[in-house]
Every structure is written in structure tokens, then in C-alpha cells.
């Protein structure tokens, strides 16, 4: 039941990997059960015609996703067209060298069906646990990404910064698939410097669009678009924007509200706070019939401009697997096909399609064959002999040394 795909926008789901008691039964799944359930959810996302599955990263209970590339590689092996992504990858506390290696590796295993969203994380102790200082969160995000960006685009990197051991003659392996690094989204909910960073590199910007009123994200996205143009990557309308969102669906809205209310009232983040009614009014959370969800999310582009990716949070706060799979059935069966139709209408031709590896390879090499990295024999003299430990790719005459 694959939905015909319109390349303009990608639709998918993102999960924070929380293991939360189901407030209606008092039952908490085991780590193993919840991990297996998430794999089932990801496979089903592809079955119902969604495009993207994105996974969070946490290093403390009650979350399980400490090692996202392991999980995403497993899902890649069990799916055929689903794009695997993150929400988010911690650019502050992970070593950028390991991110470069892990995600290039995943990119090869998934044959290009990989991108990632970088974020700073919101759990204070993760910084000291990984030897970092939370007060340096923003400088870490800026410096670490500068290094990651180079590691994926230069075969040999000499580097020295404030936060990491210097590198001399380091080559991150494997090289990005076809010499095209995974597409990067920068996620932030409040920090203008991160919007600036995304714009500077011509990368995507992702607003989680879950917990706050739209005005918070509007300011960031509009800043990102304006600065994307400022740095010469295209017009503001050509910037690459992704949005989160949160929905709970049922055939009719009363059933949706009745079923979701206990999960809302006890949810880890906003539970025991505002009422479901207030929260749905103030934030993009929409609880109701498929048509209500379609109307609300078809209207997002009025606030943020035409955009490229819409992810939904549908599996948190203790919702059982069976319910989540039903949510996916309605999302894939009714909501997303309608959103694809509606959002294609009136979309200006100059607004770019959602990024895919295939498109990025084609943009880089045109009709030519995309190269594959072939290392020279290494006797330890790779770096003395020339600019790269790799043979220059025969195809397209392209230099492997510089990125796009």
C-alpha cells in the first residue's frame, strides 16, 4: 500500500525513545520490548507509505536510544525506501570524529537513505558524563560541526580547536557514499546562532514544533531563511525547512480526545500542567479526526513558508504499540496522502524538493558516474606522497578533496 511519492515533501515520524508507563493500564514495557516495538513502528512507517523515520539520542533512563546508528542500521536492513534520520544527534557531547565515521558508515549500509539532525541536547548531566561543560554548549556545537563538515569533505584533515585533541593527517573512514555527505539539519527551539549556523552552511533547519507556540519557531525559521539568502545559497524561499508536530487520530474527534487525554495528562514533559484543550490551542498538538489533522498541518506553510519535511511524534507518553500502529495506518492511509496533495498545490516551482541522496549525487555529478572512494595501498606514507590516500576518482573528473 505504498503511497505515490511526491518529491517535494517528505513525511515521517520521530521518536524520543521514552519508556513510559501506560497510564491506562499501569504497565511499563521493558527496554527490550520497547526497542522491538520501535523497530516494528519503523517498518510499519514504510509499509504505510511514510518517507522518514527519525530517532532521538539519550544517555539516561527512561530512554533507550543511546546508540542511534546501531538501531538505524538494523532498520535500514529491514526496509527499502525509508530515510533514516535522527532527532537529534548530540553535536555537543559526541566526538565529531565519531559522528563522521558512524554516519558515513550508516550511509553506506543504507545506500544513501540517511540524513541527520544535530542538536545540543537538553539533559544537563550528559555534558559532564561525556567530559564537557554545559556552559560551552553553543561553542561546542559550532566548533564540533565545523570539524564534522570538514571530515566529510576533505580526505585528509589537519585540525586544532578548543575542545578536542588536535588531528594531524586524519582521514575519516569510510568516505561518504559517492563523495556526498549525509544531509544535515540543524535543530533548535530557541537559539538564533543555530539558525545562523544552518544558514551559513546551506544546511537544513529543523524546528521540533512540539512544545511551544508557533511564534517561537516562526522567528527562528524566518531568521534562518533570511540568513540562508544572506550567505548566498539561494533565496529565502529556497532554504530547507523541516518541522515536527504531534498528533493523535481517531475516526471522530471525540474518540481521539477521550483516548489521548490520559496519555496527555500524564505525559513526561507537559503532563499535570496545561489542559489538553489549552495545549492543543497553543501548540501544534492536534487531537482529532483525520480531517482536523489535515487542516491544521496543511496550514503550517502559512506560518513557515513552503517546507520540505514534516515529522510527527506519535509514540511517546506510554502509548502502546497497537495504538501507535493504528495511528500509522491512519497517517499513511488518509492524512499524508491528503497533505501531499494539498501542499503540492500552489507550491512555487523554485522551492526545492526535499533532500535525498540520489538528488544530491545528481546535483554534484550530473549525468556522470558518481565516484567511489578507492584507497591507495597504505605503507604509512599516504600523506607524504600526495594530497589524498585515495586514488583520484576516474569518473566525472571530480576531485574528491573538496566537497560540494
Amino acid at each position, binding site marked *: 500500500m505504498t503511497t505515490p511519492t511526491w518529491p517535494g515533501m517528505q513525511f515521517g515520524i520521530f521518536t524520543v525513545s521514552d519508556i513510559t508507563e501506560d497510564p491506562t493500564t499501569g504497565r511499563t514495557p521493558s527496554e527490550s520490548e520497547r526497542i522491538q516495538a520501535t523497530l516494528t513502528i519503523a517498518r510499519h512507517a514504510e509499509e504505510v507509505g511514510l518517507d522518514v523515520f527519525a530517532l532521538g539520542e539519550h544517555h539516561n533512563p527512561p530512554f533507550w536510544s543511546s546508540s542511534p546508528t546501531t538501531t538505524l542500521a538494523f532498520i535500514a536492513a529491514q526496509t527499502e525506501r525509508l530515510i533514516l534520520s535522527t532527532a537529534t544527534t548530540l553535536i555537543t557531547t559526541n566526538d565529531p570524529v565519531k559522528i563522521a565515521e558512524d554516519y558515513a558508515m550508516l550511509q553506506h549500509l543504507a545506500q544513501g537513505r540517511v540524513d541527520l539532525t544535530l542538536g545540543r541536547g537538553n539533559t544537563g548531566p550528559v555534558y559532564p558524563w561525556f567530559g564537557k561543560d554545559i556552559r560551552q554548549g553553543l561553542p561546542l556545537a*559550532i*566548533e564540533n560541526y*565545523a570539524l564534522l563538515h570538514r571530515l566529510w569533505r576533505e580526505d585528509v584533515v589537519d585540525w586544532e580547536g578548543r575542545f578536542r585533541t588536535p588531528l594531524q593527517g586524519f582521514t575519516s573512514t569510510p568516505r561518504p557514499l559517492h563523495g556526498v555527505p549525509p544531509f544535515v539539519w540543524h535543530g533548535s527551539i530557541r537559539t*538564533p*546562532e543555530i539558525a*545562523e*549556523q544552518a*544558514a*551559513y552552511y546551506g544546511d537544513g533547519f529543523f524546528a521540533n514544533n512540539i*512544545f*511551544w*507556540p508557533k511564534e*517561537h519557531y516562526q*522567528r*527562528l525559521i524566518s*531568521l534562518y531563511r533570511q*540568513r540562508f539568502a544572506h*550567505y548566498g545559497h539561494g533565496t529565502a524561499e529556497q532554504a530547507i525547512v523541516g518541522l515536527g508536530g504531534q498528533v493523535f487520530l481517531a475516526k471522530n474527534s471525540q474518540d481521539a480526545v477521550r483516548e489521548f487525554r490520559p496519555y496527555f495528562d500524564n505525559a513526561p*514533559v*507537559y*503532563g*499535570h*500542567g*496545561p489542559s489538553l484543550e*489549552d*495545549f492543543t490551542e*497553543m*501548540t501544534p498538538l492536534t487531537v482529532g479526526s483525520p480531517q482536523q489533522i489535515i487542516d491544521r498541518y496543511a496550514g503550517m506553510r502559512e506560518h513557515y513558508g513552503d517546507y520540505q519535511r514534516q515529522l510527527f511524534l506519535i509514540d511517546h507518553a506510554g502509548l502502546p504499540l497497537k495504538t501507535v500502529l493504528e495511528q500509522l495506518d491512519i497517517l499513511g492511509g488518509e492524512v499524508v496522502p491528503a497533505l501531499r496533495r494539498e501542499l503540492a498545490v500552489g507550491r512555487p516551482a523554485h522551492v526545492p524538493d526535499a533532500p535525498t541522496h540520489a538528488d544530491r549525487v545528481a546535483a554534484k555529478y550530473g549525468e556522470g558516474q558518481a565516484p567511489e572512494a578507492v584507497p591507495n595501498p597504505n605503507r604509512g606514507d599516504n600523506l607524504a606522497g600526495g594530497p589524498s590516500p585515495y586514488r583520484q576518482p576516474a569518473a566525472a573528473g571530480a576531485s574528491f578533496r573538496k566537497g560540494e
Partner: protein
Amino acid sequence: MTARRIAVVSAGLSSPSSTRLLADRLAAAVVRELGSRGDEAVTDVVELRDHARAITDNLLTGFAAPSLETAIDAVVSADGLIVVTPIFSASYSGLFKSFIDVLDPDALTGMPVLLGANAGTARHSLAIDYALRPLFAYLHAAPVSTGVFAASSDWGGAGDQVSSLAERIDRAAGEFAAAVAGRPAASAPDPFDPASYLGEGRSFNHLLGGHPGE
């Protein structure tokens, strides 16, 4: 010139409250003092009790409901701030602190503040100096040296006969009016203006450290 905008935060829980009574007295005295200096002043009163649920929600969700957001905007964009809290268990009220906690930590930097408090007896009067003043010092606000404490007895004949409540209000209002009048009209920098977070005329390269001397 445009009118000075004075925000008045009253953290009393009952209605009517003697906290509000003191807040109104302070506000009236400040308007009078500014007027005598030729400055027109308007006041925005924020009664925290009206926002009690929204303040708690904001603590949990990280964002303010629309009516609370309006109140916060009035406070952080004011030319000066009058705060009055009841003293509970030897300090400011929990509701008062919760409201302070939902403000951006930098939002009151440099803000002239008039500190007020009330309680049943004058034995709590130092709470202004050991509880409120350090809080506003932490926020880099600029509280004037005279704080006004009103015990229940100050509202009647048994009050302080040497330095009466009215005299203390006038003295504090005079100091506060001088601080407000000496300050350029409030203009909040836009945090989403690249000049604010990068510095005027700078590019992301400066954050990358690519420009020596930065």
C-alpha cells in the same frame, strides 16, 4: 516625550490584598514623583494571582500562555519595575519566585526596581534586604536603596511614629523616579537580529573564530 512605563508586580494571594494596597501606594507615589520631574508615567499592574495557573504551566512546559506572555512583556519592557510580595516563611512568596523564574534570566538587567514587601508584623522587615535584594542582584537589576516594608500595624495608628509608611513610600518613590528618569527610554534589543547575537556587521565566521582579534 513618550510616557515612562512602570510595571507593578503584586504577589498577594488574597483579594483584596494588603500587598496590592502597598503596590498601589508605591505606584501612585512614583507617578507623582515622575510628574514633578516633568515625566509623564503610566503603570501596568500585574496581579500574579490572576496568572497563578499559567505561571505553573509555564514552569512545566517552558512557554507562557498568551495572557501571561502579555504580562511578562509588560514587565521586561518597562522603564522601571515595582515589586511587592508578601513575606511567607521568612521570604518572598512562592508565587512571586515562580514568576521571577519564568522570566528570561537576562530580562531585568539594568532595570530600576523598587522593592516592597508586607507581612503581619514588622519583625519580617529585613526580608527585603536578605531575600529580595540578593535575588535582584543576581538578575543584574538595579534596586534602589530604600525598600518599603508594610506591617499590618503600618496601616493604622499603631504604626511607626518616627518614619511613617507614607514617608518611606515617598522616599523610595523619589529614589526610584530619579533612577527611571536618568535612564534612556527602554528599548529591548531583538534577539533575532544578527547584530544582537553576532555583533554589528559580523558574520558566522566570527563565531568560528576565523577572524583574529575577535
